[in-house]
């Protein structure tokens, strides 16, 4: 197992190198003139300005030189200072956010994390419960209903579902509103009396002993959480169900049954324990999946996380923000994958003992 984990860790830098290379390659579909606008805050107006920027930042140099400059930054000819460089944490300036990309990411990240965490709890609970129950009732009514539900959930366009929720629960009934907080409260949380410890509203409000803000934040989370749930529950249900069915066919189940173990014990002690090993790893990826899947949900519900910012950046062709977001979400997913793989190795005795 140790060898396996070491191998995974050795591959990690390679993958991250590939990720940066892919991101930088995507940038190459823009011409040097368009890319020249990326390195300065104001869009250059005259041809001479554009040419100066192209020479200054080496945009006419070969690909690998440009890539290296992008990675480690360039030395300013006049001051001798090293400027830029993704590896140095400088992701450039976000035109749509009007501040450095890295600052926008840090500022908007907690809201998205909060949304994903709140969605994860019901997704895992419902997904596993429904999946186990469907497998135990294989081909009976519950299984058929769960299956049709999963297919519909899987086929439902996220943005249509989200808009339908808004139609019923906001426009018609006015029970829930889009956004993160009601107008009054959103003014209040930026006043000096309210300390933002984590920038996650549901946690900060409790730490500040403000149950009214907590309930308000929760009310705003219900619609986006429900939207995120539809697809993810369907996915987890499918995986749990097939993992359960797979285990139910194994010889050890027959053995357990032959030695007269009660059916309930077979299910709880043998089948479910083994079936949940792959499910746990998928559940681990759910968080990363939710973080990546928030682009549309956040946009529709006008929720101030990194997803809605990325969508806005893509529409206005704010390239540096897009690249920053891409790099960020890729690193997140690679890290989640690594953790999940290691968890799998630790949990599964077949891998652990090999």
């Amino acid at each position, binding site marked *: 197992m140790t060898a396996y984990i070491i191998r995974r860790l050795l*591959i990690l830098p*390679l*993958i991250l190198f*590939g*990720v940066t*290379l*892919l991101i930088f390659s*995507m*940038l190459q*579909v*823009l011409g040097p003139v*368009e890319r020249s606008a990326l390195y300065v805050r104001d869009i250059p107006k005259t041809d001479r300005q554009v040419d100066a920027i192209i020479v200054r930042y080496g945009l006419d140099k070969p690909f690998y030189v440009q890539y290296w400059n992008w990675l480690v930054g360039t030395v300013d000819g006049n001051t001798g200072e090293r400027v830029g460089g993704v590896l140095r944490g400088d992701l450039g300036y976000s035109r749509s956010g009007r501040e450095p990309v890295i600052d926008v990411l840090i500022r908007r990240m907690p809201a998205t994390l909060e949304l994903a965490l709140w969605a994860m709890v019901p997704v895992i609970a419902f997904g596993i419960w429904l999946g186990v129950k469907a497998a135990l009732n294989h*081909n009976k009514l519950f299984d058929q209903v769960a*299956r*049709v539900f999963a*297919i*519909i959930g*899987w*086929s*439902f*366009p*996220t*943005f*249509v579902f989200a*808009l*339908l929720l*808004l*139609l*019923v629960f*906001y*426009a*018609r009934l006015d029970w829930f509103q*889009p956004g993160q907080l009601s107008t009054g409260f959103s003014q209040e949380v930026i006043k000096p009396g309210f300390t933002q410890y984590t920038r996650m509203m549901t946690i900060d409000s409790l730490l500040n002993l403000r149950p009214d803000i907590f309930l308000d934040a929760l009310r705003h989370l219900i619609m986006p959480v429900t939207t995120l749930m539809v697809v993810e529950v369907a996915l987890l249900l499918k995986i749990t169900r097939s993992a359960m069915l*797979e285990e139910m*066919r194994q010889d050890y189940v027959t053995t357990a049954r032959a030695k007269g173990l009660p059916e309930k014990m077979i299910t709880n002690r043998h089948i479910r324990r083994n079936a949940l090993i792959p499910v746990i790893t998928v559940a681990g990826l759910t968080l*990363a*999946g939710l*973080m*990546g*899947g928030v*682009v*549309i949900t956040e*946009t*529709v519900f006008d929720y101030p996380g990194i997803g809605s910012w*990325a*969508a806005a950046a*893509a*529409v206005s*062709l704010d*390239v540096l923000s*897009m*690249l920053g*977001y*891409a790099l960020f*979400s*890729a690193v997140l*997913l*690679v890290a989640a*994958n690594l953790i999940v793989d290691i968890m799998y190795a630790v949990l599964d005795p077949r891998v652990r003992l090999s």
Partner: protein
Amino acid sequence: MTTVSDPVVLRPGANDAGELREMTRLEKAVGPEWARLIRGIITNPLSVTGIVLVFLFAMLALFAPVLAPPPNENWPRMQIPRDGFKAEPQPPMSVWNKNSPMSVPWWYRNVWPRQEQWVHLMGTTSGQYDIWYGFVWGARTAFFASFVVTFATTLLGVLVGTFAGFYGGWVDEILMRVVEVFVAFPFITGALILASLLTPMFGRSVWPATVALIIFGWTGYARQLRGDILATKERDYVLAARASGAKDSHLMLTHVIPNAMFPTLVRISLNMGAVVLSFAALSFLGIGLPEGFADWGQIVSFARSWILTLDVYWYIIVFPGVALLLYGLGWNLIGDALRDILDPKLRGKKA
């Protein structure tokens, strides 16, 4: 009827005793594997529903010029005609004044809604784009995106997966690391960003989103085919063929790929639906397509400026939304049934 020149071929029977029986006509025509597939598909109510749904959309796409005629001969057909420029959407069945279709087809006059003048059958969006026109012609966009993206991703994935799986070693190692790099991006994030970057190059058209979905969509096929080929490669009949001196290319084309192909078929079907949802999501966010292009995702996006009064303007979401849902559902139902039929672990058991 069996003649002398038509030898009786026996197959294992359906019963558990393993009795042999004569091949059915279907099995003779297409082979036992495909026969089982076809029989499974047409006897399962869910997949039949799926086939009917996809067929209906195919009809919608095919007969678009009859169902929603363009305003004149030279009209760019994928462009939704607009009845003026007013911001406020109009409800279904309101009068169509400007840019109405050039002809009144017989179904419109005689079946439904039995009128001589065109009305907005499904209402209009803000900016007075006719929803019915977009609904009908949007089916063409959907089929275009599904077919082009699925075809290209399958081809790319099958190529990469086959080379990786068949040659193994460092070829496999490198190709799989490349796949891992692509998989590191959440699918919609990668597609969103690439489509946005491609827009200046292609101009506003269907291509930015299509190309972006292809570039981030092939990895699933590659991984799956590689796994299937690795498994098939070790089968006795492949080893036997290799031992008898068959060449690599011959082995790959006649033994390995055809046997690893069936799981890919399931993925293709499921992908046909998924592609359209991703494509619509991108155009909903405003990436790629020009304004007023007949696409379901884009019609829904017009609802974004009417969040407060969505219950009044429900028709902007409901009609194209239902089209998207049913189109995706159709393909997913077929794919789901295919998977059940082809899953070797479930084979022999009554599914």
